[in-house]
């Protein structure tokens, strides 16, 4: 198949569940995993006479995301009704934003093979989630759980500017990073708090008009979004190559087979009869409110990268790695409050700390070694009391096992404290120099490489406790004296 003749055109719709305690239009809890139909008030169940009441916090969270994406924030907005019948939709309509999305335009920057691309957004709008239908297999019974009905969502809609599954992957990774940084959403795709639908079409490279678009749903990880897009591009090109026209439809991705399957064709789609909800008064976002939201925003990854490269003077690479998640960045900054060698802190976190986290599958928040403790450990190395290898390979594992112990205590117990005081190191050096007079002569004749042998011997005789830096200096001085 000749893939290179074609260009893929991809647009993504990302739904993110907002991290609020209560629902968007009712006081019910949004807690995940409650017993079915326990977070359901008369409002959630759409009892006769009930009216929606907007939770102001959802506005603040959506605005946060909009500001982070450089979007234009609506100063005046309404909610619209999207009318359709389904058992998990209590009111018979979904409250969403059709004509006045809370955020318009904007972009999310992604980086692919070192090249930056701004993925343009069409909009970010607020809406309510539906309940969950559960079909009982083997029977014709369906049960509905309304706990999720009315949970606040933002829908982030891109322009059709994504050109490959890799770009889609990078975009989603970036969006997930952003929502987590902003405390807008927990970003958990497996639990469905972050969901993505992809609109995919293909066209010949020099074509002007887009091909027929197909919507793909049911992808529960970023990796699966990438797989689904790849499978769909290949399927569509395959059909075009055979001269078969693409049908506009909705397809489901099957993670087991890696293929997409037709769910419904677009012709069967509802006319949603959108119109402004007369039960909710229009929302005005004042300059004052906007300022409040701006001030309450946590720092964004790009801001942190800036700070890490200037204030902490880290290389760009370090800054990027350390800001990958908010937890790590915070942990780094916490440690830096107690250690002045920021690069050392960076090396520690990017090295032994990260590999311990990976090994134990822990996030920085869950990491048992506190920032203060790690700072103490780094200080021990910095002051020459222990070597880096002892600290990372012997003391850190102890600290992970016994939460709350101090690195100094552990070093003492393991008897690995280095001596940097000259009085205790000098006698060792004297004895080594005295025991190898011929090697001393070789050194004097210019075989400077022999120094390593002397150092090895010094460390061996001091049982590793001599500070290598101090020992090295003393040794040089001694040899040059002779």
């Amino acid at each position: 198949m000749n893939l290179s003749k074609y260009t893929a055109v991809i647009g993504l719709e990302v739904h993110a569940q907002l991290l609020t305690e209560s629902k968007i239009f009712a006081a019910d809890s949004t807690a995940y995993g409650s017993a079915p139909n326990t977070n359901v008030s008369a409002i959630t169940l759409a009892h006769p006479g009930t009216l929606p009441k907007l939770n102001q916090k959802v506005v603040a969270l959506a605005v946060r995301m909009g500001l982070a994406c450089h979007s234009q924030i609506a100063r005046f907005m309404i909610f619209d009704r999207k009318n359709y019948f389904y058992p998990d939709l209590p009111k018979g309509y979904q409250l969403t934003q059709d004509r006045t999305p809370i955020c318009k335009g904007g972009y999310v920057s992604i980086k692919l093979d070192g090249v930056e691309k701004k993925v343009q957004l069409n909009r970010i709008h607020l809406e309510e989630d539906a309940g969950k239908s559960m079909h009982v297999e083997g029977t014709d019974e369906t049960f509905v759980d309304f706990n999720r009905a009315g949970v606040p969502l933002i829908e982030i809609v891109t322009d059709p500017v994504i050109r490959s599954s890799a770009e889609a992957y990078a975009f989603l990774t970036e969006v997930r990073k952003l929502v987590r940084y902003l405390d807008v959403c927990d970003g958990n795709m497996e639990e469905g708090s972050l969901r993505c639908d992809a609109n995919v079409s293909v066209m010949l490279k020099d074509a002007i008009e887009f091909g027929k678009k197909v919507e793909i749903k049911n992808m529960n990880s970023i990796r699966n979004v990438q797989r689904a897009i790849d499978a769909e591009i290949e399927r569509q090109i395959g059909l075009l190559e055979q001269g078969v026209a693409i049908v506009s439809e909705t397809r489901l991705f099957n993670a087991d087979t890696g293929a997409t399957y037709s769910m419904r064709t677009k012709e069967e789609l509802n006319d949603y009869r959108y119109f402004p909800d007369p039960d909710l008064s229009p929302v005005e976002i004042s300059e004052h409110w906007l300022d409040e939201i701006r001030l309450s925003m946590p720092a964004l990854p790009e801001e942190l990268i800036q700070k890490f490269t200037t204030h902490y003077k880290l290389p760009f690479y370090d800054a990027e790695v350390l800001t990958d998640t908010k937890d790590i960045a915070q942990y780094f900054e916490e440690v830096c409050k107690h250690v002045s060698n920021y690069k050392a802190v960076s090396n520690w976190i990017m090295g032994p700390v990260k590999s311990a986290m990976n090994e134990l599958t822990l996030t920085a928040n869950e990491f048992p070694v506190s920032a203060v403790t790690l700072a103490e450990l780094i200080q021990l190395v910095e002051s020459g009391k222990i070597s880096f290898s002892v600290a990372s390979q012997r003391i850190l594992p102890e600290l992970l096992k016994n939460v709350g112990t101090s690195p100094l205590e552990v070093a003492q117990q393991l008897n690995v404290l280095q001596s940097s005081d000259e009085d205790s190191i000098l006698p060792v050096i004297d004895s080594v120099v005295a025991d190898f007079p011929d090697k001393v002569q070789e050194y004097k004749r210019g075989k400077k490489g022999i120094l390593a042998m002397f150092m090895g011997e010094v460390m061996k005789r001091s049982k590793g406790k001599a500070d290598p830096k101090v020992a090295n200096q003393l040794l040089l001085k001694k040899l040059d004296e002779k």
Partner: protein
Amino acid sequence: MKDYATLRDIQDDLARGTVSCADLVKHHLRVIHLKKHLNAFLSVYEEEALKQASFIDHKIKSGTAGRLAGLVVGIKDVFAYKHHPLQAGSKILDGFISPYNATAIQRLLDEDAIIIGRQNCDEFAMGSSNENSAFGPVLNDADNTRVPGGSSGGSAVAVQAGMCRISVGSDTGGSVRQPAAFCGVVGLKPTYSRISRYGLIAYASSFDCVGIFGTNVEDVAHVLEVIAGADEYDSTVSKKPVLQYPKELSQPPNKKYKVACFRETIDSPGLQTEIKKNLLDNLDKLKTAGHTVDALDFPLLEYSLPTYYILATAEASSNLSRFDGVRYGYRSPSTSDLQSLYKKTRTEAFGKEVQKRILLGTFVLSASYYDAYYTKAQRVRQLIRNKMQEIFKTYDFILMPTAPTTAFKLGEHTSDPLEMYLADLFSVLANVAGVPGISVPCGVDGKGLPIGLQILANDFEEANLLQFSAYLMKLN
């Protein structure tokens, strides 16, 4: 039992101890039973009302009674009353019990009003004759062969016949004022957003108003003062302060009013001659009393009815989607799959008029007709609003008939929906513009049927409107 003119007279006697709430409730219960054939009540909360009465009698003795102590109230079957049935006159809510109180109901209870029962009405408040109720029509107490008007027919008749002192109804296109006119009682539709809609079953959200029926303006003022005002459960309700309407009423200004009337209403071809004469007589009386009366052209009047029927049915088609047989109320016993559950449930349990309006509303909202109907109607609504605001810059009130005719015969208009819709010709204007309106009884026609006169005022001018209504009733 003594025939009390106003709630204040009752409260004076309650304070003196010459009457008790229990006496009052018993009296109204007797009338309810006596007039059972009018079909005004769907439920009568007999024991509960008596129990509540003796509780409030104790409160009166200890001096802790609320502002509405001694007031016996009936509520239209569209208000959520906790642990009581709620059906909007429809089969689709068969067996439904509300788990919460509407804000208006809660406020009545908080001030010790006694709720005596649930009143019959047109299904989902859609109708002008109360013939669209799943529980059968309500009869006019002035003539049992005639309709009481609608949709709050049961509520109007209950006050007319003395089954309760106050009824709380809803007015979307005239559903309080028109039956008030047909039954010879006072019916107030306040400014849109003056009273919380929380707990009022929605027909058309941007038109729906809680309305009040009484035998006199003063009682209505007392109830309005209690139930109006800001409510955290309704984001569309106004936060404007609520005035002390009864107090305002007791201090009428000695001023000369500027009153407008529309040539289009006076010259309306469908207007009953006696109603026209009644209106002109009243305008003359006002002139004689030194007030300014001007006849204005209001060519937009004829557009208010189609504007109303497009926007109200659009909203209704969506508002009534929740009645789907899934979570509560009626579900067809013969469903085979999801589609048939919806179709059969809604076909079997919604009446013809409701189905008609849902279909009409669905049509005007559909993608290919949205702009031609819905968008256009919204624009016309804005035009009408602007024009009304302009008139109220110069005039204090607009006077017009409440309805083109007095109460018509049962079945008279059921075959011609357009003729039925014309019954709302003069009442929808207030809802389209959002302004307050009231119907006050102003004599009878040749058959002895009550005539209602309608007064409209500017937004939130309820105090002036009530003062002027009381004044006009005195002139008659």
